[in-house]
């Protein structure tokens, strides 16, 4: 009866040895490869540092003008643009300017990386069903695995700092852009693709002049989601030494500083809303051909 009452698990010693073995081999791996992997990510590090310094050293009125200008360029809405400027003024007035600049730098670089990697992966996935069925479970893992589980090996390999934080953010934030690029390309009207083929388009012409433009609404939804998810990771990233709005939030959790946590948390929300509204409006503006009927 013992067989049914107790699960026939592995011997405790064997299990311990297995775990130890995996740990030891990963440690060996990180000892022998850690430095070269770090070197591989160096350009990313320098880019991030450079961008952060640039934001921090630029006088605040210029930053606010740029924020307002970009918001207007993206959304063509004075209200949104004014709202963004006022939010930033508030954030600065409440003493969160430097942290906000660090966070904006991190989010921008992370979003850039996610787009640069995610769109080509999505394009490849849309071309091959086999690739799609391989990559989809990987994306599922990236989105659902507890963050600390992959944070640990990343920290073991690269130590604590900006680059591991950036990698953690990207792992979590990349899946939506990959998924939605794939989806968007697969949803493009077959008849339009046939027309493109009938006029002798080659693969590149078909992709850039027909498929990507028509998949743009979905791709934009992906970019938007990626930005939101990257912002959601700001606090986690601060745990492994990334500067920014996450740091005071973390402090407030540890020390029960209610007001500090609230302010910085709301600053993150403000960033999220600005990024979201501007990118959505911009995406819509690219789709102006969908408004049928009236004059252009």
């Amino acid at each position, binding site marked *: 009866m013992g067989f049914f009452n107790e699960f026939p698990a592995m011997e405790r010693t064997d299990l311990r040895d297995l775990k130890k073995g995996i740990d030891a081999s990963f440690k060996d791996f990180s000892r022998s490869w850690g430095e070269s992997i770090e070197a591989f990510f160096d350009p990313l590090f320098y880019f991030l540092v450079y961008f952060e310094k640039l934001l921090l050293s630029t006088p605040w009125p210029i930053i606010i003008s740029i924020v307002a200008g970009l918001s207007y360029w993206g959304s063509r809405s004075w209200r949104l643009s004014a709202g963004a400027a006022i939010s930033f003024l508030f954030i600065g007035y409440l003493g969160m300017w430097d942290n906000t600049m660090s966070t904006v730098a991190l989010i921008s670089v992370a979003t850039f990386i996610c787009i640069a990697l995610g769109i080509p992966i999505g394009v490849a996935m849309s071309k091959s069903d086999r690739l799609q069925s391989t990559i989809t479970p990987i994306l599922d893992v990236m989105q659902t695995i507890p963050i600390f589980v992959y944070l640990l090996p990343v920290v073991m390999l690269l130590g604590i700092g900006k680059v591991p934080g950036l990698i953690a953010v990207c792992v979590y934030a990349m899946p939506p852009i990959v998924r939605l690029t794939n989806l968007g390309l697969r949803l493009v009207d077959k*008849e*339009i693709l*046939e*027309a*493109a*083929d*009938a*006029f*002798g*388009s*080659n693969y590149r*012409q078909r992709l850039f*002049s*027909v498929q990507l*433009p*028509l998949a*743009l609404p979905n791709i934009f939804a992906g970019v938007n989601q990626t930005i939101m998810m990257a912002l959601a990771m700001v606090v986690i990233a601060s745990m492994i030494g990334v500067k920014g709005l996450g740091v005071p939030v973390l402090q407030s959790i540890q020390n029960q500083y209610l007001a500090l946590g609230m302010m910085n948390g709301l600053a993150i929300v403000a960033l999220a809303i600005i990024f979201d509204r501007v990118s959505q409006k911009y995406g819509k503006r690219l*789709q*102006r*051909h*969908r*408004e*049928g*009927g*009236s*004059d*252009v």
Partner: protein
Amino acid sequence: MSKYKIEIKNLYKIFGPNDKDMVELVANGTGKQELLDKHGHVLGLKNVNIGILANSVNVIMGLSGSGKSTLIRHINRLIEPTVGEIIVDGENVLGMNHEKIRDFRRFGASMVFQKFGLMPHRTVIENAMYGLNIQGIASVEAEKRAKHWLNRVGLSGFEDRFPAQLSGGMQQRVGLARALATDADILLMDEAFSALDPLIRADMQTILLDLQAELHKTIVFITHDLDEALRIGDDIAILRDGELIQKGTPQNIVLKPADDYVADFTKDVNRARVLTLNTLSHDTGSKEGLRLDGDLSIEQAMQQMVNSEYNLVTVMNDSTPIGQVSLSDMVGAISRPDATNSGSTTTYR
């Protein structure tokens, strides 16, 4: 050099995983339903042999499911055949590699689609330029040519609209301009006017005929509408269940339907508009009639006769009389075929 611009020879298309193995079964008489039930394959085209005349409008017609849209897509190889040959200007399209087939599609044959196939994110002029962009023509030149063709189909002033802002008829004019702009000899039109309402459709037919009178393209026109086929076709081929049933001039189809299927199609046709004096003309008698050109339709001839005192027509070819047609010949010819069998004794040329 044959008189045909495109020759389709022994073309079979069977949809399914073992299509090649099924060809022999089909060739030996396995029907469409049997092939589907017993072997799980769908018969698309069965041993189709068609010659497409150069510089004329070749209509391929049939009901939905007859394989006509499948057939037209073989010509520019949007669909790969199971077996067969498609010879265009002496070259087998099916032997072309990717590079060559792309060039053929860019320069040799352009296409117009039933649902227009316009690119919604491009403006009218950008759509009309599409084929030229693909050909690699500089944008200033491409824009000039696209503008010219938009003007020819009556869309001047709409260049900067988006397709969604145009009516169906206007959208298809953009489709036509896009196809004409590439300057290809062959124009493939897949039910191009079927999605349009009757008045607009007649309009588009007129535009096409006017353009054709000047351009002399080799047009392959797919339709399920016999009136349309008779109006624009120089030559009509009728498909049923993937098989070619009959091919001939519009008059031929109407006067001598190959079987009941075709007869059924043609019974409601306005025969007075399709048949010409040439078809009815028989040996000259001694009597002198109203002198009319042989290319006139019976409808037109009757109108002329009403305004004169004649009840006989002397059919003219240029200025020589080639035969005559009496009023009763005409009445006999425009009555339905089941009625003519027992009635008129006229023998048609």
